[in-house]
C-alpha cells in the first residue's frame, strides 16, 4: 500500500518536472527563433552598406576616414557571433551611418541623386525592421527570464543550470528618443 503511494507520488512529480523542463526549453527555442529574425535584418543592412559607400564616394571623395570606419564596422558586424557582440557592432554601425547621412547633407548633388535617396530609404527601413525584430526578441527574452525566476520553475532552472538570456540592447540615443506626435 505504502509502496503504491510513494510510486504514484514519484510518477506525478517526475511528470511535473518533465513538463516544467519542456516549457523552459520551448521558451529558449523561441528566443533563438526570434534572434534569427534580427539576423536576417542585420544581414540585409550589411549588404546595403557597400552600395551606400559607393554612392556617397562618387560625390564626397575626401571623407575617406568615415568610409574606412563604416567598412570596418560592417566587417565587425558580419563577423560577430554572440547576440551581445552583434548588438554592440550594430549600435556602433548605426552611429557611423548617422554621420554619413549628416555628411551627405553638405552635398546637394548627392542628396538629389535618385540612387542615394533609394539607399537612404532602404537603410532607414532596415533600421526600423531591426527595431521591431529586437522588440519581438526582447519580449521573448523577458518571457524566458521570467519563467526562470518564478516558483517552482526556479528549482528546475537551478537543477539543470539554465542561465538568463541577455536583452538585445538599444543604443543610448535610441533609448532617449521619445515618440511625440501632435
Amino acid at each position: 500500500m505504502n509502496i503504491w503511494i510513494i510510486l504514484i507520488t514519484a510518477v506525478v512529480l517526475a511528470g511535473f518536472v518533465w513538463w516544467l523542463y519542456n516549457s523552459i526549453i520551448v521558451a529558449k527555442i523561441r528566443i533563438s527563433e526570434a534572434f534569427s529574425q534580427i539576423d536576417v535584418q542585420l544581414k540585409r543592412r550589411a549588404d546595403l552598406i557597400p552600395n551606400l559607400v559607393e554612392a556617397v564616394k562618387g560625390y564626397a571623395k575626401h571623407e575617406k576616414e568615415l568610409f574606412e570606419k563604416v567598412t570596418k564596422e560592417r566587417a565587425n558586424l558580419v563577423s560577430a557571433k554572440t547576440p551581445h557582440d552583434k548588438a554592440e557592432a550594430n549600435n556602433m554601425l548605426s552611429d557611423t551611418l548617422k554621420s554619413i547621412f549628416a555628411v551627405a547633407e553638405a552635398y546637394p548633388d548627392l542628396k538629389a541623386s535618385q540612387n542615394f535617396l533609394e539607399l537612404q530609404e532602404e537603410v532607414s527601413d532596415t533600421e526600423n525592421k531591426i527595431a521591431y525584430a529586437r522588440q519581438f526578441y526582447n519580449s521573448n527574452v523577458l518571457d524566458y527570464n521570467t519563467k526562470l525566476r518564478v516558483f517552482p520553475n526556479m528549482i528546475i532552472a537551478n537543477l539543470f543550470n539554465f542561465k538568463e538570456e541577455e536583452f538585445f540592447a538599444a543604443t543610448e540615443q535610441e533609448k532617449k528618443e521619445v515618440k511625440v506626435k501632435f
Partner: protein
Amino acid sequence: MNIYSAISSNKTKTWLVMILFVLVVSTLVYVFSKALGFSALGMSGLALVLAGLMSIGSYYYSDKLVLATTGAKQIKKQDYPQYFRIVENLSIASGLPMPNVYIMDDPSPNAFATGRDPKHAVVCATTGLLSIMSEAELEGVIAHELSHIKNFDIRLMGIVAILVGFVAILSDIFIRMTFFSGDRDNRGSQIFLVLAIIFAILSPIAATLIQLAVSRKREFLADASGVLLTRYPEGLAQALEKLAKDHTAPRVASNATAHLFIENPFDNKKVKNFFTGLFNTHPPLEERIKILRSM
C-alpha cells in the same frame, strides 16, 4: 489597468463565455431529448452532423468568400509601399509570418483581417483608410488587425459560428418535431415540453447575443495587444477618433461580414439604447478610445 492585465482579463472573459456556451448547448440537448422522448445521443448526433458539415465548409472557405464579397484585391510592395512596409514591420514585431496584403477600393475608412490561422492570413485596408490616416495611426490599425490574427480571433469567430449554428439547427429540428409528432401522448414530460418550447424560442437569440459579446471582447483584446506591438496607444486612439468622425457610407459590407472590420460599418450613433447596445458587433468607439488613453 495596464496592457498585460487587460489582455489576460480579456482572455479569461472569453473563456468564460465559451464555457457558458457549452453548458447552454448541453442543457438544450438534454431538455429537448427529454421533451420528445428521444435518446439524448441520437438527437445531438443528428444536429452535430449537420452543423459539422456546414462549419467544415466555412472553416476552409470563409476567407475566400469574404474577399470575394468585399471585392478586395491583393497588392505588391510597390503598389502601396508605406502600407506594405507597416504590415512587414509589425508582423516582424509580432513574430507572425507575413500575411497577404489586400486593398479594397472604398472611400469609407476601414480594415479587416481574415483567414483560418496565421499561416493563411489576410490583412485588408480600404483606400479611404490609407488616405486619411497618418503613419502612426495606420500602424495602430494594422497592429490591431495583426492581433486578431495572432490571438486566433479569426478562428475563434469560426468556433462561435459553429456553436451558434448548432443551437439554431437544434431549435429548428425541435420545433419541426413537435409539430409532426402532433397529438401523441406525452406522458410525464409535459414540464420538459414547456421548457423546451421556451428554450427553442430563446436559445437562437441568446446564441446571437453571445456571438456578439465574444466579438466585442475580441475587439478590446485586439486593441490591447495591438498596442503591445506599437507601444504607442495614442496612435490607435487617434485613428479611432478619426473613424468616429467619419461618416462616409461603406460601399461593400453586409451584416455577415460586419464583425470582421475594425469599426462597425453600420454605425447609427443616433439610436443608442439597451437593445442596439446588445446587438452591436463592436463596442462603442468612445469606450475603446477611453481604454486606450488609460494605458
